[in-house]
């Protein structure tokens, strides 16, 4: 029974990949309908990553649009060596980071707003019912980006350092900082 289920799952994966490859191939030739189907299939994951990186709905929506507009141009670079979703994920992270750099206002560059707002946040009850996403969004920008890329998306600190243009040690330090802040937000005492 279990073996049959595994085969069905495998068949679905193979069939899914085949139809996705067809869509990619059509979209590469300029088929907008095929590109729309790819959008429908992947917008959920793309937007989720954009939202967690930017920490703001409007910016995440704009960044998601930017991702798909750039994807239309970059699709020719996809050689099929890796999973499309993995490749799209990496494209999304890079485009969103660069979009955030462009959007960062001069006010934010002059005044470091990195720590603003943290102290105003009340600690949550120490319960198991925690909305981690809401807490992650409350983290300061750099700590949030490192946490999302490392803990949620599984990138290595070396890769994150290169993506965010920082030292590997800084990436690890920001991750530690994010964890400490999350601990505070959740109302967990130091062990």
């Amino acid at each position, binding site marked *: 029974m279990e073996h049959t289920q595994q085969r069905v799952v495998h068949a679905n994966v193979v069939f899914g990949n085949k139809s996705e490859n067809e869509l990619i191939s059509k979209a590469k030739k300029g088929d*907008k309908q095929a590109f729309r189907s790819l*959008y429908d299939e992947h917008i959920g994951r793309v937007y989720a990553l954009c939202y967690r990186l930017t920490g703001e709905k409007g910016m995440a929506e704009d960044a998601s649009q930017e991702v798909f507009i750039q994807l239309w141009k970059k699709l020719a670079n996809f050689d099929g060596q890796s999973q499309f979703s993995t490749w799209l994920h990496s494209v999304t992270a890079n485009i969103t980071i660069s979009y955030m750099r462009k959007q960062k206002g001069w006010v934010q560059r002059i005044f470091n707003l990195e720590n603003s707002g943290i102290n105003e946040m009340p600690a949550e009850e120490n319960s198991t019912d925690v909305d981690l996403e809401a807490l992650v969004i409350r983290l300061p920008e750099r700590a949030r980006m490192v946490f999302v890329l490392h803990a*949620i998306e599984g990138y290595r600190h070396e890769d994150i350092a290169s993506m965010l243009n920082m030292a590997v040690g800084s990436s690890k330090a920001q991750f530690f900082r994010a964890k400490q802040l999350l601990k505070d937000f959740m109302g967990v005492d130091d062990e």
Partner: protein
Amino acid sequence: MSNFDDKLAQHISGISKEKQPERDLWRGIELGITSQQGDASQDDASSSTVTSKQWMAIAASVCLVTVLWFAAPFAFKADESRSDGYALIDAMSMQQQQQVNSLLASYESTTALTEDWQEQLKELDDAADVIKAALKDDPDNSALIKMLHHVYQQQIALIERVHAPKWQQI
């Protein structure tokens, strides 16, 4: 691994990989893609070398767009308070029309280098109309505003390019 790390790992594994945006993003994406295709075909049609005067024309266009670019966010902030997000788009369109008219007037005595430039200008006009129609529903959409800036920039560049003297095209 500490208790907190265990707890955090549990929360992370429970976090949803997908999240749907609240507004429809496809329309802006489709317009962006269409605008890119328009750029590509226009580039093919006018693949002449860029001369010093054309560089100046491009620089002037870039300056105009930069001014609009910096002015737009502030104007939009003001618009929000007036609850009239589309007023800036109208102002931009009017300013663009004035610039196009004055450019055309200044090139009145110059023969255009291509015959179909007015068709190309009309195509860009149509593209601007489509974007403006979308902006009526969603006046704060920054991707659409960027596209409209871009189309207007293309119009100015087109007029200047086709009216450059022939000796400058060599």
